[in-house]
C-alpha cells in the first residue's frame, strides 16, 4: 500500500450564489508526486486551490492534509436552500482554517496573477515569507534579542535567492524584475515558508516554449531538493505531460478524468472537453 496521502479532498464543492464553481472534487496526492490539475478556462481549478488554502470555506466536503482535516463544510443558512451540488446532508461539521494557518501547516502556494510585494525588494519578499516560522515576539524582535534567528533568516533567504538565480538582483524592487523572474521569485517566496506541499497556479503562464521547458526542469529540481509534493495548474500541455505523475481533469467544476499523462491523452471525454464534440 502507498503511504498516507499528503493531501486529499473528498466531495469538495464550492458554490457561489447559484453557480457551482467546483463540484465534488475528490482527489488524493501522494508524497513526492507532481499532480496536475487541468481543464478549460473557468473549470474551477483556481477555485479548488482557494478552497484548499483556506481563502474560502468549502460549501460542502472536506480537505485533509496528512490525515488531518483542515477544511470542512456543509451547506448552511441560505445555501441550504440554494445548494445545487451533490452529497447534500453527507457532512454535518464545518471547520475552516485561515490561509495563514494552512500555510503554517506546510502548504504554500503561488498565484495565477503574480502577487509579489511589489514595492519591496526581491530579498525582502523572501525574507517576509520566513516570518511565519519565527519564534521571537514583537519586543524581542524590536530590541534585537533574536539576532541569531534574524541572521539565520537572512542567510537562508540569500541561499534561496542563490538557488533560483535571483541573488544578483536581490536588492532590486520586485516590481522591476522581468516577468519570468517574477514567477521564479514567487516560487522562491513560497518555498521560504518551508512547505511540504506546494501549489503552483499556472507557473508557466505567458512563457515561451524555451522558458516553459526551463520552468519544468526547475519544478522537478525543487521537488528533489526540498522533498516536496506538488500540485500544479497549467495550460501548457507539453509541460503538464512532461512533469506530472498523474493528472486530474476538470470541466465546468466537475472532475471528468483522472490518470497518468498517457491515459489522459487518450481519454475521449477530455478530448471532448478541450475540443468540443459534434452533437
Amino acid at each position, binding site marked *: 500500500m502507498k503511504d498516507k496521502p499528503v493531501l486529499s479532498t473528498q466531495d469538495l464543492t464550492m458554490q457561489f450564489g447559484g453557480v457551482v464553481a467546483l463540484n465534488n472534487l475528490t482527489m488524493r496526492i501522494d508524497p513526492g508526486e507532481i499532480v496536475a490539475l487541468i481543464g478549460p478556462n473557468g473549470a474551477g481549478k483556481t477555485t479548488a486551490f482557494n478552497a484548499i488554502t483556506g481563502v474560502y470555506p468549502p460549501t460542502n466536503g472536506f480537505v485533509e492534509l496528512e490525515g488531518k482535516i483542515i477544511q470542512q463544510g456543509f451547506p448552511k443558512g441560505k445555501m441550504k436552500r440554494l445548494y445545487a451540488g451533490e452529497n447534500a446532508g453527507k457532512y454535518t461539521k464545518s471547520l475552516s482554517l485561515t490561509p*495563514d494557518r494552512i500555510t503554517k501547516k506546510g502548504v*504554500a502556494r503561488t498565484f495565477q496573477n503574480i502577487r*509579489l510585494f*511589489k514595492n519591496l525588494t526581491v530579498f525582502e519578499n523572501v525574507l517576509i515569507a520566513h*516570518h511565519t516560522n*519565527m519564534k521571537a515576539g514583537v519586543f524581542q524582535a524590536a530590541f*534585537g534579542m533574536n539576532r541569531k534567528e534574524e541572521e539565520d533568516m537572512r542567510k537562508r533567504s540569500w541561499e534561496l535567492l542563490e538557488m533560483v538565480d535571483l541573488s544578483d538582483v536581490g536588492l532590486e524592487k520586485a516590481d522591476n524584475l522581468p516577468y519570468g523572474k517574477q514567477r521564479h521569485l514567487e516560487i522562491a517566496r*513560497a518555498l521560504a515558508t518551508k512547505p511540504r506541499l506546494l501549489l503552483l497556479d499556472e507557473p508557466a503562464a505567458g512563457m515561451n516554449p524555451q522558458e516553459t521547458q526551463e520552468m519544468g526542469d526547475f519544478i522537478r529540481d525543487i521537488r528533489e531538493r526540498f522533498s516536496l509534493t506538488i500540485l500544479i495548474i497549467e495550460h501548457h500541455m507539453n509541460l503538464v505531460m512532461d512533469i506530472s505523475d498523474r493528472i486530474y481533469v476538470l470541466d465546468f467544476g466537475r472532475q471528468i478524468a483522472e490518470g497518468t499523462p498517457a491515459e489522459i491523452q487518450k481519454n475521449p471525454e477530455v478530448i471532448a472537453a478541450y475540443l468540443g464534440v459534434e452533437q
Partner: protein
Amino acid sequence: MNQTVWKKRYSFYLSLLVLLVALGLLFWLEVNKSNYGMAVSVIQKSLVFSVVAVSMNLLNGFTGMFSLGQAGFMAIGAYTTAILTIPLSRVDGVYYMKGVAPWLKGVKTTLSVLPEPLLIVFALLIGGMIAGIFAFFIGIPVLRLKSDYLAIATLGFSEIVRAVISSPQLDRVTNGSYGLKNIPGFGVTQAGGVLPVGAGSLLIPFFFALTTIAFIVLVINSSYGRAFKAIREDEVAAEAMGINLLKHKQLAFVISSVITAMAGGMLAMYMRSIEARAFSVTLTYDILLIVVIGGLGSVSGSVLGAFVVTFAKDWFLRFFDSPLVIGGFQVPFLRMGFRMVVFSILLMIVVLFYRRGLMGSSEFSWKGIFRWIRRKKEGVETTKGEMIDYPDPPPAKPAPLIPDPPGAPQEGGRDER
C-alpha cells in the same frame, strides 16, 4: 570596502554631533524661555505632533490601514494624564462645579507620595495602557474592515470617546464640558532649585519623542515591521505567506494607539488646560495632513512634516495675520485669518509638486545626502526615491529619444508607479 566602513562611522559621528548641537540649542532656548517663548512653544508642539504623526504613519503608511481614531486615543491619554497629575491642592479648584469623585480623590491622595516627575511618567504609562486595552478590544471587530470602512469605524470610536468624556455623567471624573486645567507643564517652573527655571521644557518632550520614535523605528525594522509592509502591499499574498492578518493588524493598532495616547498626555501638558472639544475630528485631520505632507511610509518624513506644518501654521505665517502698511499703502488681504488661506495654498503647492509627500517613502540618511550632493556636483541625474545601495552609483540614463512632455513623471522620482 574601506570607504563604506569609514562612511558608516562618519554618519554615526555626524548624527552624534547633530544630536549634541540640538541638545545644546534646546537647552539654551529653554533657559532663555522668556525671550524665545514662541520658538519654545512651537518646538514643543512639533515634538508632540511628530510622535503622533509617526505612530499614525505606522498604521496608515506601513501597515496600510486607513485609521482615523487618533484624536480619540489622544483624548484618552490626555485626560488620564491630566486627571492623575493635577496637583492635589488644586483639584477642588478645578472641579469647582460638581466636585471630584471620592474614589478619584483617594487614588490621587495615594499617588501623591510619588515625586512629580515620577507621577507624570506613571500617568503617561497608565494613559497608554488604557488606550492599548481599548485598542485591543475595539480592534477585534473593527480591524476586519478595510480602507474607508475602517476609517469610518475608527472615526466613530474617536467621536464616542469625545462624547463620553464631555458627558455630564462623568462630570466628577473628567469635569465634563468644563475641561481640566492646572495641568503641570514641562520643566522647572519655580526658581531657587538646582536647575534654572525652564530647564527641561524642551528636553523632556525631546527625549520623549526620541524614545517613542526610536521604538517605532525598531519595530518597523524588525521582522514584524516587514510583515506590516507585506500586509500593506498585498493582504492576500501576505496571508498566503503565513502572516496572520488580524494578529499583525491588531499589533500595529495597539502599538500605535499606546504611543498616540502617551503623546496625547504630552499634549495635555503642553496645553496646560484641556477640554473635550480640542480632541475632535479636526485634530485627526491635522495629523493626517502632517503624515501625508511628510510622506506615507516615511518616519523621517512624518517628523519633518510635523515641524514644517507646525512652524508654518503657528509661527512663520503669523505675518499674514496682521495688517501691514507700507508708505501709507495698506497691503490688501492681510488680516486675521488670512494666514490659513496662505497655508492652504502652500499645502496645495506641496501636494502638487511632491505627490508622495516631502520624503516619499524613503528615509533620511547621511549617506543619501552625500550621494545626492555628489551626483548634483557631477551633474548626473539624481534618484531621490532610491532605497537601494548600489556599490557604485548607477550609470547615467541615456537621453530619451523623445523628450518627456513637461510635467511628465521622471523615472526614479517620487511618482507613483
